[in-house]
């Protein structure tokens, strides 16, 4: 898209790193390399290199902040070690956790998506309507079309918000389901 070589701005690598930092900072949700490349009129390779450079700079200087890859984009966030002080400062308490039932339903949806309500019932052995409603309200799951089966039930899958709230790069970032087998004694 940004093939306008004539317009290619002349930036030093350090300037590009600084610009990328500024843009990731102002964004209110993770920014993809693609968006950065388009706005800055650079190719994605240059952006990737800049982000990597930035990341290692943050690491090297033991910053209170970190550059994270979340939901396919980049984000600046505080380091987890500081959560106590930050929470004290913001005077916030940890937000309400999902109930056990909702977490289970979410796990089934995350690993079996796209999945229908009857399929969730089959696995959990219990009606999951309330949990599904909660997860929809929290935007952690979304409807993903219908299953070509009797009654054409709605299928559910996880949302981008899910990736963000659980700090995942993408769905492949989830531990593989087979890993859980070792835990079952």
């Amino acid at each position, binding site marked *: 898209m940004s093939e306008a070589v004539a317009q290619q701005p002349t930036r030093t690598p350090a300037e590009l790193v600084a610009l990328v930092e500024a843009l990731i*900072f*102002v964004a*209110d949700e993770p920014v993809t390399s693609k968006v950065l490349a388009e706005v800055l009129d650079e190719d994605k390779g240059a952006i990737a290199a800049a982000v990597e450079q930035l990341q290692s700079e943050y690491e090297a200087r033991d910053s209170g902040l970190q550059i*994270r890859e979340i939901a396919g984009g980049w*984000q*600046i*966030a*505080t*380091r*987890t070690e500081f*959560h106590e002080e*930050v929470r004290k400062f*913001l005077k916030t308490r*940890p*937000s309400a*956790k*999902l*109930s*056990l*039932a909702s*977490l*289970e339903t*979410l*796990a*089934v949806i*995350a*690993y079996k998506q796209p999945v229908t309500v009857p399929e969730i019932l089959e*696995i*959990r*052995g*219990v*009606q999951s309507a309330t949990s599904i409603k909660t997860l*929809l309200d929290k*935007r952690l799951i*979304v*409807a993903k079309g219908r299953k070509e089966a009797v009654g054409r039930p709605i299928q559910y899958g996880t*949302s981008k918000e899910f990736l963000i*709230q*659980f*700090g*995942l790069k993408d769905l492949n970032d989830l*531990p593989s*389901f087979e*890993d*859980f*087998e*070792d*835990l*079952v*004694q």
Partner: protein
Amino acid sequence: MSETPEQFTFDFHKEKAEILRASDDLQIKIGDFAGPLDLLLFVIRQEQANIFDIPIARITEKYLEYIQVMKKLDIAVAADFLVMAAQLIEIKSKMLLPRDPLAADDEEAEDPRQELVDRLLEYEKFKTAAGMLYERSTIEQAVFHRGPIETDGESAEVDATVFDLLTVFQQMIARRADEIKMEIEREEISLADMIKNLKRRIFEEKELSLMRFFEEMRSKQELVTAFIAVLEIVRTEAVRLTQKQTFGDVILRSVTTDAH
């Protein structure tokens, strides 16, 4: 249990067992368990039974015990828990049946517990996954972001889902239904009814304060109807309007009764 992969060490059952141990009596509610499979796994753990060789009689007994406790505390034990109880009892009775002597020796008779074990194992994986998600969300809650800054509204993309659409649509329909119902209720008093009502009042009470009559009206619509009714009744019936002082209350008085 020896090779626990890195971070997903959160164990709901262990937590629960600790909480239970801490409290003297069995203060268990249905809400403490995510479902019948969860309760069953918990019971198996509590009894330190082998999941691959479940002592079905003992486990069933314990499971039912828990259900009893729950029943006492909760008004209704969810149907799904009872379905599981029935399944356990069925398996138990199947296991009491003598082996079919006609069954081929080499063909090991199907273990009645097998299907349940498979389900439990599959379920436990999701349960572990739920624990992983729990841990992840805990870590995520320790991470903070810059507060929101003003965005401009020119962008095309929209932050809403089909579920939002449906919810909003439903709420809107419900809201409209309420409004329409209220309108209908209000309109129930027609002009004819209002006139009839007014006439009755005048003939019953002989004198009727218009101000009081109007004050009884519950809506603007009713008030208008009432006003028209008064005009109508003065025009067609032998009714007199009297006013003691300018801007004072107006009294409606029947004159027909006097004439008779």
